[in-house]
Every structure is written in C-alpha cells, then in structure tokens.
C-alpha cells in the first residue's frame, strides 16, 4: 500500500492506494495520527479513491482517527469509497458514524 500526505489550504489530505490489511494498516495509522496531531490541524480528509480493499485493522485505524480528531476539535472526513470498502463499513455499522464525502472537493467543503 502507498501512503502520501498533502496539505491543501488548512486541510491535510491522506492519499491511500492499494489494499489495506494487517500488513499495511500500521503505515496508514502512522500517517492518519500524525496528520491529526500536526500543529493547527483543522481538517483531515482520508482519500480512499484508490483503495480496493480494507479489513478490520484499516477500519480500526479510521475509528481511532475519528476519536483522536474529535478530542482535538479537528474535522475528520473520508471520501472516494469504492464498493468493497463501503460494504465493509456497512458490515461494521459505521457507515452512519463517519462523515463520508463523494470526492475531494466535497471533502474539503465545510
């Protein structure tokens, strides 16, 4: 899996690419938590457009990100979900818990 973090104005966008599983979720976790902890982080958006697979460890990382962001009054959104990751979020009954946006433009809109 590839992970890249970009600044877009006041927001950080984390681009993920590939499959998220037990072998790769710790790399994703580092990037997500770092972005939220960064000084003055107001909004963190996780880009799942190119993620074809996510397992429970990836979902756990998203939950951890959401919780840390709430504690720090940072806005945490995810966007670009393909069908398979969307189904996994539904199975976890978290599809109503996350702020899910269609694309990057929407994800960076208030």
């Amino acid at each position, binding site marked *: 899996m590839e992970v890249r973090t970009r600044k877009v104005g006041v927001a950080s966008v984390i681009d993920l690419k590939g499959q998220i*599983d037990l072998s790769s979720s710790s790399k994703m976790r580092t990037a997500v938590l770092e972005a939220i902890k960064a000084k003055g982080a107001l909004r963190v958006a996780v880009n799942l457009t190119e993620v074809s697979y996510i397992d429970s460890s990836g979902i756990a990382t998203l939950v951890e990100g959401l919780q840390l962001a709430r504690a720090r009054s940072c806005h945490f959104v995810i966007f670009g979900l393909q069908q398979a990751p969307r189904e996994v979020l539904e199975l976890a009954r978290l599809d109503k818990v996350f702020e899910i946006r269609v694309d990057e433009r929407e994800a960076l809109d208030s």
Partner: protein
Amino acid sequence: MIEIKISSDPKFLTIVRAMVGKVCELVECSVEEKNKIILAVDEACSNIMKHTYHGDLGQSIEIRCESARDKIEFVLKDCGPPIDPGKIKPRPLDELRPGGLGTHFIRTIMDEVKYEHVAGCGNTLRMVKFLHRNNPGELT
C-alpha cells in the same frame, strides 16, 4: 479442492485473498458475496497471526477450500497452542472504539463458524457459506 499453506506473515494475506477471490469466481458467486467471503477468510487468517501465533512470522497456516452444489467451505489449520473458542468474541458494536471487528465480520458473513482444538496439533476453524445461485458451478 484447493489447499494453500502460507507462513504466518501478513504479507502473504494478499495471496490468500487472490486465491479466495478466484475460487469464488469459479463457483460463480456474486461480486458482493465474493468480497465478503474474501474479507471473512482474510480476517480469520489475520486473527491466527495476531492471537494464536502472537506475531511470530515463522509459523504456518493451511487453508483448505471445498465446494458442493450450494455451499463453499473453508477450513483453516494452525499449529498453535489450544485456543478457547469461548474467548473469541466480537466487542459490542455500539461502543465506538478501534478493534474487535474481525470476529464480527466472520460471524456475520459466514453461515457456520466452528473453532476446534485438534489434540496434539493446533486448531481448526471451519467456515461454511451457503450460496444463492440459480446455476451453481461446482469446484470439485
């Protein structure tokens, strides 16, 4: 019948998922069923790596797959210490906290889930999924 044996290293999970996906295509299940079955088998392997082998990469996991007219069955074998099936429990889903989702996925997706200790040589996990097809392809 298909059997695959991997070292208990998470980097091999991608191979397990590819194998399970191809098997699902052979028995012609729907894309949704396929995605879910891949997830369940992946989570079951991850759990063996994490909880049975405690991260030791040098152990092995065997995955057997068989299909009959209306179902597909996976049997996972490890060589770890006996696990207590009573302790394998999902967390309550209404608490929002990371972790504890894998067994929930496995039990929600699969129609039969059975953990068993094999005297002297590890544990088996048997998972069965019944398929909803008009014109089922058989694997064996």
